[in-house]
C-alpha cells in the first residue's frame, strides 16, 4: 500500500545554484502524479529529493520538510532506510550487467538480508509479473544477463527490481523517454495497473503521457512549482498563464 507525500517549502542547491525554490505540494497515496515542465526546470531534482538521491552529489544540498506518511524523511530516518521504502526507475535502464535477470530483480532483497531461496523465488516471480515481463523471461531467468534484454525489457526489469523490495512510493524519472513507442505504451499500461497499490510520481516530458496515466499533475518552471491540480484541469483549463503557454507549446 502506498503513502501520501507532503512537501513543505523544499529548497535545493547544487553548489551555489539555487535549483528549487520553496516547493510545496501534497501527493496523494495510491495515485499517479505527473510532473511536467521544460528541460532544467527542476522536476528531476525535486523527485531526487524525495528519495534523498539528491544529496549523493557532494555539492548538493536540500532544506525543507518532506513527509511520507508520518515520517519526515530528512529528520526521522537515514537515507538508506528511505531509499528502501522509495523505489526509483531511471531515465536510462541500468541493469547490473554482471548479474542474471533473477539476480538483478533479487538484488534489493539480498541487500536487505533475505536469502531463503523460496522467498526470493516468490518475490522475483511476483515482481516480474507486476512488471509484465514474466512471460517473456521466465525460462531464461538465470541464464541470461540483465543487460542482454532489449531496451524496453530492461526498463521493465528495472521496474521489477524496484518493486521487489515492496516500496511504498515509486519514483519514475522519464522512464520511457529512451524507449520505442511500443515499449512506452507497455510501461504506461504498467503504471496504470500499479498505481492502485503504490504512490507513483512520474516525471515526464511527454504531456500526452501525463494526461494518460496521472490523476494529478504539477507544472514546474525555473525551479518553482507553478501549478498543481487535477490532470484534466491542468490540460484543459489551467489557472496560470505560464502553464497555458507551456501546454499549448509556446515554449518548452
Amino acid at each position, binding site marked *: 500500500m502506498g503513502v501520501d507525500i507532503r512537501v513543505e517549502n523544499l529548497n535545493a542547491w547544487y553548489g551555489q545554484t539555487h535549483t528549487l525554490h520553496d516547493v510545496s505540494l501534497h501527493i496523494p497515496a495510491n495515485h499517479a502524479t505527473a510532473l511536467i515542465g521544460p528541460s532544467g526546470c527542476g522536476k528531476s531534482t525535486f523527485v531526487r529529493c524525495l528519495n534523498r538521491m539528491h544529496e549523493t552529489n557532494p555539492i548538493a544540498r536540500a532544506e525543507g520538510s518532506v513527509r511520507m506518511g508520518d515520517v519526515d524523511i530528512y529528520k526521522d530516518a537515514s537515507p538508506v532506510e528511505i531509499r528502501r521504502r522509495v523505489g526509483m526507475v531511471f531515465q536510462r535502464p541500468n541493469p547490473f550487467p*554482471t548479474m542474471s535477470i533473477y539476480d538483478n530483480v533479487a538484488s534489493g532483497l539480498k541487500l*536487505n538480508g533475505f536469502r531463503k531461496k523460496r522467498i526470493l523465488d516468490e518475490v522475483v516471480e511476483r515482481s516480474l509479473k507486476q512488471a509484465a515481463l514474466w512471460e517473456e523471461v521466465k525460462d531464461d531467468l538465470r541464464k541470461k544477463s540483465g543487460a542482454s534484454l532489449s531496451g524496453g525489457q530492461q526498463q521493465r526489469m528495472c521496474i521489477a527490481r524496484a518493486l521487489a523490495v515492496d516500496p511504498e512510493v515509486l519514483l519514475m524519472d522519464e522512464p520511457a523517454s529512451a524507449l520505442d513507442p511500443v515499449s512506452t505504451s507497455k510501461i504506461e499500461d504498467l503504471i496504470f495497473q500499479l498505481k492502485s497499490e503504490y504512490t507513483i510520481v512520474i516525471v515526464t516530458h511527454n504531456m500526452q503521457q501525463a494526461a494518460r496515466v496521472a490523476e494529478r499533475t504539477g507544472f514546474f518552471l525555473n525551479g518553482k512549482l507553478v501549478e498543481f491540480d487535477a490532470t484534466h484541469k491542468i490540460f484543459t483549463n489551467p489557472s496560470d498563464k505560464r502553464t497555458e503557454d507551456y501546454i499549448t507549446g509556446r515554449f518548452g
Partner: protein
Amino acid sequence: MGSRLRRLWRAALYLWHSCYLVPRAALGVAIFITELCPQRLRAPISFLTELLAAIPSVVYGLWAVFVLVPIMRDQLGPFLYKTLGWTGFFEGANFGVGLLTASIILAIMILPIISSLTRDIMNAVPNSQREAVLALGATRWEMIRIGVLRNSRIGIVGAIMLGLGRALGETMAVTMVIGNHPDIAKSLFAPGYTLASVIANEFSEATGDLYLSALIEIGLALFLVTIVVNAVARLMVWAVTRNAPARVN
C-alpha cells in the same frame, strides 16, 4: 637445469606472498581515492601515489637495507617467531634479509601501480550503476561492492597482474635484501634468490662463456614470463576500460 626451475619456483613463491595482502591494500587505497575521499584531498593523494611510483628501485633498496632489514632482524622477526613460529614458516637464523623482507619491499613498490590502475578502472564504471544500487537502499560500501567492484572485477584482476608483472622484473631492491642464496627453504626468514637477482649478482663473477650463457638464458626465461603475464593483464584492463565514458561527478 634443475636449479633454474627452482629459481622460477622461488619467484613464484614470493609473488604469492605479495598476492594476498597487496591487492587488498591497493584496492583499499583505490576505493578511498575514488569513492570516499573528500574532493579537495583527491588530487594531492593521487599525486603522492604517483611520486611513490617514481622512486627508483635502488633507493627503495637502500632504504630497505638500512631501515627494513634491522626492523626485520630485531623487532618484527622475533615477534613473528614468537606468535607464528609453530607454523614452521619462521624457523632458522634470522639476519633480517630473506624472502619475507624481499616480499615486503616488493609489496611497497608495486602498491602505487596497482592503486592508480585500479583507480582508473573504477572511474570507468558509469555513474548510473552506482545510482541504481543506491536507489535500492544500499549503504556506501554495498554500493561500491555491487555497483563498482563487481563491474570491474576483470579489470582489477588485470591491474593486479600488471603490478605483479612489474614485480617479476624488479631487480635492485630485491637483490639487496634477499640474501642471495640459491636454495629453497620453508622458512620465510631464509635467504633466497630470484631470477633477476641471480643475473645481477653473478654477472660480475661470470667466468667463461658457459656461465655467461646460463645467465643470459635466465634473462630469456624472465623475459618470456614477463611478456605472458603482461599481455594477459593488459588484455584484461583493456577489455574493461575501452568503452568507458568520462565519469561525471
